[in-house]
């Protein structure tokens, strides 16, 4: 952000600030930890100013130093900053106005918090608490509306809980452009709804649930209906495509309860697609590899690793296949393993299969369904690896030119026919398989090493924009499985390259120092928002609470 924009000086609650002349009072307040309650404002949507919760007292400083206050409070979300503007967010008048507005918001609200999914992240509940709402003076019948409306494949609407902030509508108008939602009727009977037979069914529909400030919109797939305080969270990156949306993993008992987006203005703003959001069942389907195996027999890790090393070494020039879901660290280690096991002099042979589906859209979704293809390509280039296709490698095995293949994360049978795979193993190809789930490849594997998969993996990935981002594990792999990095450090170390104790962050620093594309980066610099290659300046997003 180098281009200088005009600045103005204003005062908020006595604090003097020099800010961008195009900002609004609410934006400035949020950026400077001045708390102003609000519902309808959202940083990535237009400003409707309808909830009226964000009113503040505004005035202008006069020549003689006195302040001329505006006669009415102003909504801070639509109040442009100006030179000499004075803002008071704490005076009695403002506090009372906030209380009064909360009272209005609550009179027709069902107050069914004990059975609401939103408990714990309901802004209404939070502000009501802060405003210290007392006994109700509302002696009338509440307006009743439908409480369980199926508005789309993933989303349910409770019209009684809705506070008509229009965030969900604006999202569908302004972000996806699909306009499935609208406000029907008017006045006290205003309600959000769809057109009959035209459900909220766009690839990003789940976002409306995140931005709904109350519990009016809920995700059908929010699993376990957990009370939020029972859930643990980890900040991570969605592995669903090359966008690498920044997400939060909500989990409990080693299972994903839900995935929600985290704000990153450069990558995904505060959105994510439904595919990513609903990734959990796909990840959790199938049978996990429970323990290390050598030629079909369960063995302990020691034996499995030793055996793997001896087979790799014996082959003279082992090749590798790596799934682009793998982290940079896993890729780096896999290359180290191949290099250390090989006889030297000849380049490493490595396949990095493509996983593409559909097309890029103009919001988030990428055809490339892997989170780290660009990162791994950089590593391969840097290490002068010879790239090959999986079919190619298997042909070489049949021709007797290849006797060991390190397979990280891929199921080869999804890339070539099972017959082709069988022909290669029949010709003597030994497969050293690092895998999370049982599949045709693990069944054909000589040595099978049980590995973690998202969200059990710590590491870094590079999205299609070239942004390096940090994936964080939510919980460790199950059974005897270990993370890919754990397994591969041990193989590398047994082959004489590096220590067993290298942590992912050390590995990142090591690779960053050696791979030109990552020059200047360190794990510590990646921060919350990631950094752009090559060695680009860290662009850490302004951390505001974006909900």
């Amino acid at each position, binding site marked *: 952000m180098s281009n200088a924009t005009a600045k103005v000086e204003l005062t908020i609650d006595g604090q003097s600030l020099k800010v961008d002349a195009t900002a609004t009072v609410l934006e400035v307040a949020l950026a400077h930890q001045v708390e102003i309650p609000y519902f309808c404002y959202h940083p990535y949507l237009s400003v409707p100013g309808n909830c009226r919760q964000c009113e503040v007292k505004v005035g202008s400083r006069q020549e003689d130093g006195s302040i001329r206050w505006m006669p009415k409070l102003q909504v801070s979300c639509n109040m442009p900053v100006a030179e000499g503007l004075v803002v008071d967010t704490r005076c009695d008048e403002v506090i009372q106005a906030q209380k009064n507005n909360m009272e209005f918001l609550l009179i027709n609200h069902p107050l069914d918090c004990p059975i609401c999914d939103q408990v714990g992240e309901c802004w209404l509940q939070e502000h009501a608490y802060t405003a210290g709402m007392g006994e109700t003076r509302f002696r009338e019948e509440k307006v009743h509306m439908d409480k369980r409306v199926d508005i789309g494949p993933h989303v349910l609407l409770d019209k009684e809980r809705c506070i008509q902030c229009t965030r969900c509508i604006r999202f569908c108008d302004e972000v996806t452009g*699909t*306009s499935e939602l609208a406000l*029907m009727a*008017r006045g006290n009977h205003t309600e959000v709804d769809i*057109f009959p*037979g*035209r459900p909220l069914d766009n690839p990003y529909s789940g976002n409306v649930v995140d931005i709904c400030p109350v519990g009016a919109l809920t995700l059908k797939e929010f699993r376990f209906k957990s009370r939020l305080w029972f859930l643990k969270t980890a900040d991570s990156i969605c592995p669903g495509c090359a966008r690498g949306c920044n997400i939060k993993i909500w989990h409990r008992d080693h299972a994903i309860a839900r995935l929600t987006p985290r704000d990153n203005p450069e990558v995904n703003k505060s959105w994510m697609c439904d595919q990513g959001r609903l990734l959990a069942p796909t990840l959790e389907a199938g049978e996990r590899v429970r323990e290390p195996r050598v030629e079909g027999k369960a063995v302990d890790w020691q034996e499995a690793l030793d055996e793997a090393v001896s087979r790799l070494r014996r082959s003279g020039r082992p090749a590798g296949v790596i799934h682009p879901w793998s982290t940079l660290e896993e890729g780096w280690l896999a290359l180290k393993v191949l290099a250390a096991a090989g006889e030297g002099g000849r380049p490493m042979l490595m396949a990095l299969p493509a996983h593409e589906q559909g097309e890029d859209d103009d919001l988030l979704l990428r055809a490339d369904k892997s989170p780290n293809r660009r990162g791994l390509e950089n590593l391969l280039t840097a290490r002068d690896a010879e790239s090959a296709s999986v079919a190619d490698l298997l042909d070489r095995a049949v021709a007797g030119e290849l006797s060991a293949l390190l397979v990280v994360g891929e199921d080869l049978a999804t890339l070539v026919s099972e017959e082709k795979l069988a022909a290669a193993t029949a010709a003597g190809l030994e497969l050293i398989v690092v895998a999370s789930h049982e599949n045709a490849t693990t069944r054909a594997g000589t040595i099978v090493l049980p590995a973690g998969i998202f969200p059990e993996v710590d590491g870094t990935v590079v999205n299609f924009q070239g942004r390096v981002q940090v994936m964080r594990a939510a919980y460790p792999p199950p059974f005897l499985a270990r993370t890919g990095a754990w397994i591969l450090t041990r193989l590398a170390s047994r082959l004489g390259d590096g220590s067993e104790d290298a942590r992912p962050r050390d590995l990142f620093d090591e690779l960053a120092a050696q791979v030109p594309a990552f020059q200047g980066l360190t794990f510590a610099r990646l921060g919350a928002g990631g950094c752009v290659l090559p060695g680009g300046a860290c662009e850490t997003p302004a951390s505001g609470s974006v909900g």
Partner: protein
Amino acid sequence: MSSDHRKGDPCGASGISDQALRRELEEIVAEYPEKRAGALMCLHRVQRHRGGLSPASQVLVGELIGISPAHVRELVTFYTLFLEETPGRYHLQLCRTLSCQLRGAGELKARIRQRLGIVPGGVTEDGLFQLTEVECLGSCDSAPVIQINDDYFEGLDGDKLDTLLDELAARPPVAGGQG
């Protein structure tokens, strides 16, 4: 009572083809700098021809002016003159606001209930009359007022209302729309 024999004629169901209707709407839209601005006039026109704004009509208008069906429905439900279903042949829109209330709107309501057996929101069984209470019609000097379809009937009292209802009920149904 009005001498204009057309006064109070029913609107609706003109039998115009979809294609002809579409052409009319395109003509309306052409008058505005932006297509969407033709929305209200298009909905009025469709309602005049079709009697009510069915989901299919709403989709048609949406396509024509380039907005989603939900955004059309938003208009249909916001503006009280738009009806999703064809009303009774005579849509009695009784003003209930202050000036009419002061001058006997309540009596008219009672009289309608007594004579036709309907309260606001109701339709007579023969589909002839539908009653809606509406807000100030801008005719307070001739209160109490009922708008029936497109026309105002002003300065009513119970007896005048009786005569009017008799007269309307006796009219032969009109084929085709007007205007």
